[in-house]
């Protein structure tokens, strides 16, 4: 008997969209996400190109639709342990990690985090801010349940504490909570495991981590976001001053055989968007984008680039900078590059430099693929389907893939492919 249920791995925009489509068709969906909240990378974005829609404003309703949908079971802070069986009859074992906070009791008030004495570097804010050892992944998290990070919590580290338990009026803290094993029977699986950010300290010539005013694109995104660590104010890490000039360097780690040989697909537009937003925040600010090819191929993208040039003081310079040094007096980063039009070697100083870092398949991708028995390509993406007519198939029948785990792609492409994978999963359930 075919199980009219689908397991979706990854709760980013692709996993969310695939889940909603299938659930709306009347299919039961188990959505597994390793982080404490669904939302994925899109939740970290301030606004989205080319419409400049606030990312959270369009994502939050979808996250909540997932949480409230009668056909969707959300399994956050959970990971796939193993899967057996075949199309129509898969048996999956999922580990729901202990949050040490009771999901049914926690109201998400935040009193616990306010009192928690331990500060931890905030991963969601790309390392720019701090969170507590008991925390909500981000303000609009779904579910809104808090979670204790045992690697940093004083009590779990053998010290005296217990402040959160004393503070919680809902009596939701449960230090004894154990990981939970959940067994699922499903007819098909969709992989939507998304992407991670490439560690740009590997490109020592650009000085990230060493030069204070050099940030990654994701750090800048969190900084310019109204709900980010600086409340949307641009501040130079070296002196807290507002920058007047920004430079974006494209293809940092992408299109580079020493690092990632592929094009990360979203960065040309992403940098353009960040430059536009910066100018919107500070009309006297100007930006320069150092690029190799300006790959603005989506609907409305060329017009967006034109607007950036004419209305938002964005200059495009075709060059691949060789290195970044620092002006010792004001700690301004200095970019060294060859102007390809004049073939001159030039230097130019900026208040802040943003590196458009390469994106790569998430580390979970490899682990999940191995457990499912899906083969990956030399870059760690799900191997492209040999059948051009079925671009969502993987090497295991009944398992489909969509979104960034297949290849670098932006939000609209991920959303299209998520719905498409949902179609293939529905077809697989129907044809058995």
């Amino acid at each position, binding site marked *: 008997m075919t199980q009219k249920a689908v397991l979706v791995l990854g709760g980013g925009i692709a996993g969310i*969209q695939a889940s909603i489509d299938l659930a709306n*068709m009347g299919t039961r969906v188990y959505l597994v996400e390793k982080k404490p909240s669904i939302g994925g990378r899109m939740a970290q974005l301030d606004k989205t190109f080319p*419409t400049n*829609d*606030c990312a959270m*404003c*369009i994502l939050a*309703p979808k996250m*909540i*639709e997932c949480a*409230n949908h009668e056909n969707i079971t959300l399994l956050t802070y959970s990971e796939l342990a193993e899967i057996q069986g075949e199309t129509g009859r898969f048996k999956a074992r999922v580990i729901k990690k202990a949050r040490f906070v009771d999901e049914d009791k926690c*109201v*998400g*008030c935040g009193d616990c985090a306010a009192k928690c004495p331990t500060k931890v570097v905030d991963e969601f804010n790309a390392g720019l801010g701090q969170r507590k050892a008991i925390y909500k992944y981000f*303000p*609009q*998290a*779904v*579910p*809104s349940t808090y979670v204790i990070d045992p690697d940093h919590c004083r009590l779990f580290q053998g010290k005296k504490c217990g402040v959160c338990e004393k503070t919680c009026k809902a009596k939701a803290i449960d230090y004894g909570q154990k990981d939970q094993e959940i067994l699922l029977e499903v007819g098909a699986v969709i992989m939507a495991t998304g992407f991670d950010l490439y560690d740009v300290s590997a490109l020592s010539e650009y000085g990230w981590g060493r030069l204070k005013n050099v940030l990654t694109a994701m750090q800048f995104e969190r900084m310019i976001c*109204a*709900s980010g660590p600086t*409340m*949307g104010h641009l501040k130079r890490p070296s002196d807290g001053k507002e920058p007047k000039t920004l430079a974006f360097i494209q293809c940092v780690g992408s299109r580079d055989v020493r690092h990632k*040989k*592929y*094009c990360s697909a979203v960065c040309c537009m992403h940098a353009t968007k960040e430059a536009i937003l910066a100018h919107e925040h500070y009309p006297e600010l100007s930006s320069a984008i150092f690029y190799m*090819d300006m*790959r603005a*191929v*989506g*609907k*409305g993208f*060329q*017009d967006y680039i034109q607007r950036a040039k004419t209305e938002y003081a964005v200059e495009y310079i075709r060059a691949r900078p060789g290195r970044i040094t620092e002006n010792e007096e004001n700690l301004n980063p200095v970019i060294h590059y060859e102007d*390809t*039009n004049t073939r001159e070697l030039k230097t130019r100083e900026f208040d802040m430099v943003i590196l458009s870092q390469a994106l790569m398949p998430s580390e979970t991708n490899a682990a999940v693929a191995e457990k499912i028995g899906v083969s990956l390509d030399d*870059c760690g993406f799900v191997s492209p389907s040999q059948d*051009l*007519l*079925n*671009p*969502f198939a993987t090497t295991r029948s009944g398992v489909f893939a969509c979104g960034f785990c297949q*290849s*670098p*792609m932006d939000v*609209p492409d991920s*959303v*299209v*492919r*998520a*719905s*498409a*994978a*949902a*179609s*293939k999963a*529905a*077809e697989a359930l*129907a044809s058995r």
Partner: protein
Amino acid sequence: MSDAMRVGVFVCHCGTNIGGIVNVPHVVEYARTLPCVACAEGNLYTCSEDGLSTIANKIRELHLNRVVVASCTPRTHETLFRKNCERAGLNKYLFEFVNLREHCSWVHMDKPEKATLKAMDLVRMGVAKVSLLKAREDLSTAVLQAALILGGGISGLSAALVLANQGYRVELVEKEAELGGLLRFVNRVFPTHQPATELLDPLIDSVLKHPNIQVHLGSEIKTVKGFVGNFKATIDENAEMRDLNVGTIIVAVGAQVHKPEDAFGYGRFENVMTQLDFEGRCGGYDAFNRVVMISCVGARCEERSYCGRFCCIVGLKNAILLKEANPRAHVTILHRDVMAVGKLYEEYYRRALEKGIAFVRFDESQPPQVKGAGTRAEKVQVLDTLMGRQIELDADLVLLTTPLVPAADNGLLSRMMKIPLGMDGFFLEAHQKLRPVEFPADGIFVAGCARYPAEISESIAQALAAAAKAAVPMAMGRVVTDAFVAEIDPALCSACGRCVTVCPFGAVDWSEVGGPDHGKKSVAEVNPAECKGCGLCAASCLSGAIRLSGFTDEQIMAMIGSQR
């Protein structure tokens, strides 16, 4: 509990979006002083789980019978808050949305004090209106388990097959005499280089053999009436009129190749052709020794601002095929940017570089010049921006890489089905980011090059995505539509017909009712299943016969009349 009005007001900070400008605690205090308000609260994010459960709890605890949320826009959040009311046992039409973000904090960022006063006004108006709202039920209609697919190219074929495999009946309408669309004129496909027919033939075969698919070749769509769940399309199938009754429609009519009349010697020199001309005409790839390709012909220019998305890849493909067929051939691609986005394309670009294909970047302001004698192009001159000097290339073949342009019938279909076109002439989706294959009108979807240039795998992806959306109402068997629709009082209707003309959704039509003298009289009537509640008809009615529930004159006057 008594029937007395008990209004709950929930004011959202929206992080700093509202709270950074409007003094939210002040607005909350003010709301508590308004008539019938039983409670008022502020939330950091009213749409978060937290905010929603606060509302639900207050509804239950205080027996609220009206709810006002003052936050962002109903466009994205109305459904959410209404569902939340329903969850707590309150009829969802007893909810009023006040927009303090788009209508207040965002537009008055520089005047926080005045913005706070305006926010108080808006909240007061919301409270005045909500008391006059009445409980209503959603409208529900049955859905036919059949889809109409317009266009038999790779998109239409893929959508047809995946829907048919799920058990839905499919009517596939193609205006040409055969299936396959643009792909019929393509020689080999990226990146496998297998002949296009190898892909297309088995797909066409499965579609033709499928018991659930009815193919209508040489057929043109004439009219489309009805609404989601129950569309009636009339087609002209080889001069015979036929009615098709379906529940959903997928528009996959494709696009056409841009022909650059008079540019770069096209039409003057026989050896200057578009990539697709070449693929159609070419017997062998080995007959050329010096090939020059010019990219962005008719794209990313004043006349047509968009990028053709995959034209660079078509150029790469033919360059690689030419070079593989004749390794001694000189193949040069003149380009502005090589749009090899992502992984497969970038690999393909590298493959072309490794094969020795030359790439020369030119500037839009100094396009290449094609020189020749008689009917033959012989040389291409261009300013190589990387070298900073003019170069001249010999050419026995010049290929122009041109984008796809919208199909000629798009305007007609747009009017017929009331689905919008963008400035570029392609169909415009409901939302670029999150609703890429949907239209504002329910039950009609778009896929492939009808929406924007899309190569094979993208077209298939969009087709399957559109199929997923179309499957939803068909799988559920019913659609539920909003109860805030226009209503016409037949006694007041003067049958002037303004509302019938003005309705953009075709929801108002004529109907016969008993007249005052026991005869018949014609009056306008709204089909609630098609009505989107836009209010155009109500505003245009000279007789005051049309009221839009949820926005009646009484409610609007109450909003205006309430005083601070």
